[in-house]
């Protein structure tokens, strides 16, 4: 069994780990997460928001393990008879899930999601890379030795590439894809941890829900319409699942998409862009190198909050760096309702045209990393009985059924143009009312 270590955690009490996991945590790629803040510059609005991806990653591993253990114990027969698992397979998958959760964020850029828009494009698909792909590449290129050659791995023979494939959702992981819902799904351990952790540090109550009850009602079932296995919540867990979905909605509208916080996302992106252009990481490009080689990933990982903040402090990040230091951020002068009608969207376009060159940037809820989309959750009725039936949470929850996708749009102008811009907006609103 080996030695077990415990790390104190403000959300889960203790996070427990073995010597193998401790060595992985001590690897420089993981230690870098101490220098990546969980919510970027959210402290400009909520001063307590100083926590990092380091503690969140430990928390995700802890929550995912509890979820996995519960499902395994509750549905052991089902996993074996319907999905062909055996005890050894489940033991191995648990280790795969733990390590994948631990490492899922190692590829984050400085200020976490804010800099996601500065990732290079995949030449084949034309789409920008995502932090998950940088995480997978960092694991694959840089952590092979610490993952594969530890004595505790002799029982599992887990390869770094396998963890990378799991994080990327690659088909080569086969039936283990079932557990991907625990890392990236509607009720995943990532969300389960960050809602509670962010609320705790920021000092808001919006993200709280009953984690213990949620875990105690997790199960696995088959979608009858397409014969696919899914992680679901069973009867008795409806209110815990509802609470988590509402927590997401509240945290999105009150914290992640808060208007000033989003302005600082913009300023940090522009600052990093200016720094990248100066650094000549890639000649003529204002993006991070693609996660396609060991050298690129090493170069990418040199960028963390400390480095960026140091350069900003030294005056290297241009006007946006200065704005951040003086807290003279751009101001939102117009916003649509949370769920705008088509005409609201078109009115926003009219406002933008009227403001012309005063517009600094336009922000969309759908373009934000922490989106709130109308979500549903597989829900198992009469679990364990012959008339067991998989449905969706919205079928039995009018609260979940009533929540719609948040699609708010905001228009920002520089601080000095705020009053003038607000006058233009007021004039356009009046014209609109008169037309009605």
């Amino acid at each position, binding site marked *: 069994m080996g030695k077990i270590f415990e790390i104190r955690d403000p959300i889960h009490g203790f996070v427990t780990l073995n010597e193998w996991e401790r060595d992985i945590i001590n690897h420089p790629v993981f230690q870098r997460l101490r220098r990546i803040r969980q919510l970027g510059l959210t402290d400009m609005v909520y001063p307590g928001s100083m926590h990092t991806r380091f503690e969140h990653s430990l928390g995700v591993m802890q929550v995912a393990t509890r979820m996995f253990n519960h499902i395994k114990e509750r549905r052991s027969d089902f996993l074996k008879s319907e999905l062909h698992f055996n005890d050894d397979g489940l033991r191995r998958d648990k280790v795969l899930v733990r390590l994948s959760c631990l490492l899922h964020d190692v590829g984050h850029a400085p200020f976490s999601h804010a800099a996601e828009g500065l990732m290079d494009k995949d030449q084949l698909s034309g789409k920008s890379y995502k932090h998950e792909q940088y995480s997978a590449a960092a694991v694959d290129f840089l952590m092979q030795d610490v993952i594969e050659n530890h004595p505790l791995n002799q029982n599992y023979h887990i390869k770094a590439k396998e963890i990378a494939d799991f994080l990327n959702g690659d088909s080569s992981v086969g039936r283990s894809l079932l557990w991907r819902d625990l890392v990236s799904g509607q009720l995943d351990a990532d969300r389960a941890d960050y809602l509670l952790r962010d609320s705790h540090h920021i000092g808001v109550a919006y993200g709280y829900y009953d984690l213990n009850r949620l875990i105690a009602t997790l199960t696995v079932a088959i979608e009858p319409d*397409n014969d696919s296995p899914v992680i679901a919540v069973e009867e008795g867990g409806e209110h815990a699942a509802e609470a988590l979905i509402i927590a997401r909605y509240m945290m999105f509208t009150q914290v992640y998409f808060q208007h000033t916080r989003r302005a600082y996302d913009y300023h940090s992106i522009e600052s990093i862009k200016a720094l990248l252009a100066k650094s000549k990481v890639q000649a003529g490009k204002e993006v991070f190198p693609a996660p396609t080689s060991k050298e690129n990933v090493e170069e990418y990982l040199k960028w963390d909050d400390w480095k960026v903040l140091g350069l900003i402090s030294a005056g290297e990040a241009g006007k946006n760096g200065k704005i951040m230091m003086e807290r003279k951020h751009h101001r939102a002068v117009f916003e649509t309702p949370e769920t705008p009608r088509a005409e609201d969207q078109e009115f926003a376009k009219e406002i933008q045209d009227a403001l012309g060159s005063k517009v600094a940037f336009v922000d969309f809820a759908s373009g934000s990393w922490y989106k709130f989309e109308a979500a549903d959750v597989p829900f198992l009725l009469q679990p364990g009985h012959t008339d067991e039936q998989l449905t969706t949470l919205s079928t039995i929850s009018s609260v979940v059924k009533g929540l719609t996708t948040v699609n708010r749009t905001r228009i920002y102008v520089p601080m000095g143009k705020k009053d003038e811009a607000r006058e233009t907006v007021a004039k356009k609103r009046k014209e609109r009312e008169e037309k009605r």
Partner: protein
Amino acid sequence: MKITFDIPWTRYALIAELAKRLDGVNPQFGKTVLEKLVFFLQEIYGIKCGYDFELYSYGPFDSQLLGDLDLVEHWGGVTVLRVNNSFGGYRIQPSEKVDSIVGKAKEFIEDQKTEKALDDLVSNYGAMTARDLELRATTVYVERGLRKKGEYRSKEKICSLVSQIKPKFDFQEIEQAVLELKKRSHIEFTD
């Protein structure tokens, strides 16, 4: 973040157009069928729909698409009906503002390439059940993944990977789907 305003009308119009075209064609046109058809449109027919599908045990999926469906419903472009209590018991139907939503991205929808792709999509896959589409979408995802990594692709390898992800489908059924997709030139492998 964007400097200018850019409403993704093409995404919304596509959902509305599919609701129109599948009305009366696919009695199972719900959320699962929508996910798989848009995935095909993007992967097989090369239409830039703007989605990022990822693989789960329930096949390729992008939650953004369901978010967009919710908005199109909110705007009166489609109605998402609950027809029974089963997991997939939703039906998407065109609603009173369907043409107005399609009209917002008229150029895209009426573009020759998009039109041809939609015609072929509906003719090849429009009437399939959610289960059949699920199997085929997973197969296409698996084949594309192997292709992207430059790995050797044989019928056996593709069938074996799909079978691991979809343990409730028998091997013969998977093999049949693989051969059918190859016949349509929607996947490639070495015999």
